[in-house]
């Protein structure tokens, strides 16, 4: 059987959307029979490959690296899915947007440090001024809201994309679900 090349990525999120994917339990194995997971936090590939059919993106775009990465992913992906509220609306990460980047960093690394208080600046990516949803950076083909989207919704969406016929994934999830 021809395996569809699928990737999952994780930008500024909590991993809950990936965990919801694992919440398919044994059905993960049914999916695995039909797809090849070419890039994901769950496998050992270091480089986002060319020619990926479907990429599921968890999380908002919060750093210069997230932005760079999502552009490359878009270039190499046929069908890009915003998975979960953080990807769809920037959700939790966006809650920092009402403060300046400096204020947010200083709280953690200067005020709340016993010693050596300083904002890390070497070899760590720069925070964007605001955390923003994926579609503000690149075109997104499908949106699956939920915090996280329930496994049934993810399963339906994947079946839909793999079989090319609608199964109603959107009926069983909503923002904040």
């Amino acid at each position: 059987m021809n395996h569809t090349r699928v990737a999952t990525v994780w930008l500024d999120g909590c991993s809950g959307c990936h965990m919801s994917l694992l919440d398919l339990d044994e059905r993960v194995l049914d999916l695995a029979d039909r797809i090849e997971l070419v890039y994901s936090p769950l496998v050992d590939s270091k480089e986002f490959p060319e020619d990926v059919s479907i990429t599921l993106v968890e999380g908002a775009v919060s750093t210069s690296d997230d932005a760079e990465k999502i552009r490359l992913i878009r270039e190499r992906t046929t069908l890009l899915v915003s998975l979960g509220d953080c990807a769809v609306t920037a959700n939790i990460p966006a809650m920092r947007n009402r403060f300046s980047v400096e204020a947010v960093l200083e709280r953690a690394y200067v005020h709340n440090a016993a010693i050596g208080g300083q904002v890390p600046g070497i070899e760590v990516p720069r925070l964007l001024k605001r955390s923003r949803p994926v579609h503000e950076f690149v075109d997104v083909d499908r949106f699956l809201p939920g915090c996280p989207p329930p496994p049934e919704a993810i399963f339906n969406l994947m079946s839909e994309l793999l079989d090319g016929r609608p199964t109603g994934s959107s009926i069983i999830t909503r923002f904040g679900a």
Partner: protein
Amino acid sequence: MERTIVIDPVTRIEGHGRVSIFLDENGDVCDARLHVTQFRGFEKLCEGRPYYEMPSLTQRICGICPIIHSIASAKACDQILGVRVPDPAVKLRRLINCAQIIQSHAVSFFHLSLPDLILGMDYDRTKRNLFGVVERYPSIARDGIRLRSIGQETIKALAGKRIHPAWVVPGGVNEPLDSEDIDQVMSPLPEAMTIVRRTLDWFKNSLEEHREEIRFFANFPSMFMGLVNDLGNLEFIDGKLRLIDYKGDIVADSVQPERYADYIGESVKPWSYLKAPYYKPLGPEEGMYRVGPAARLNIVDGCGTPLADQEWAEFRSLGRGPALSSFYNHYARLIEILYAVETMEMLLNDPDIRSPHVRAVAQPNYEEGIGVVEAPRGTLVHHYKVDEHGLVTWANLIVATGNNELAMNRGIMQTAKRFLNGKDISEGMLNRVEAVIRAFDPCLSCSTHQVGETITSIRLLGPDGEVLSEAGPS
């Protein structure tokens, strides 16, 4: 010539990090660093939010262990209210936390580390993952998927949703259980017990094959820290702090969790968004301690449940003092799953678990609250200050993984020194460096987390940063 090896991103961990290994002019490893390169800002973004939102909000720090964040948060809020949480609610929190331990430890053991443990460190990297395990050892992989699912289903039965439910609240939990819920939680426990005992037997028999990893995966003296109950036994959601030294002697005991800041200081490394806590009296150089499953089994006087106690005794007889190799975290995780299953059985037979008195209600009465718990990965602190309306004005969080920051760096260095030489880099050697990180099961999504800084592979850099060689992608 000095060079740097970069592993980017570290895979099969919960979150994202990058490792730099520095080689001196002879090609020998002279330093190593773990960079955690995403920052989420929870300590600031909580500001201005009402205290009662905190359990739901802060559990979104981590989708793998949201329950324990909600409990730490609710405990801090209990103090802000100034209430004594009804006993049944304490037991219900304990019950749901056991389900979380099963689920979270199962992900770490089966989904993330088993590929290294069973397929081997040098196995084909495109198949060195859960699906590769399914191909070769389907029954073991299915055991892992099933065990995780039992944990998650229990959380759903208790709290209505598998990930980010809103059941644990300030003052207790928001709904009592009915008989149907209890039956639903009870019924898969025998199966969970069978799976964990089978896995423990298999793993103990395979320890011999991992002699090298045991010797070199962060195997060095350090202090260990965790919570214990009044009997000195394993405790996740109440209890007091205990610290021991590498010989097993108690350094501090019965420490009220509210006094955490007298014992733990946080330092900052300019190259990582992960802060590095240390034992304050000894300072940031000497004050390295470890937390997590093996640390907990090292500090306690027992688990407090019959089967886990037997396993604990066997675990403690591995060496003369505390188990010093972080490889043993894998082993300790299985023992803690066993403890969690036994504890759940016990709790479900307690009449209190059906009580309708599950929540104490009050207005905010105090300006400050501190909740300290044992997350699957170790000690977790939520500390809030609020104004007279109960709006958060300040927050400090010490996440479990952070506590291990110093030890993880030491561990990476030790493994790199043993398995790497500057002449040729093999992918399998570098996978061992990643595997020592996996043994700590760091939750970098908790601590902050990132996707590889640049999407790349394994690079060898010269002193000015030029790429000398690349290995291993695709």
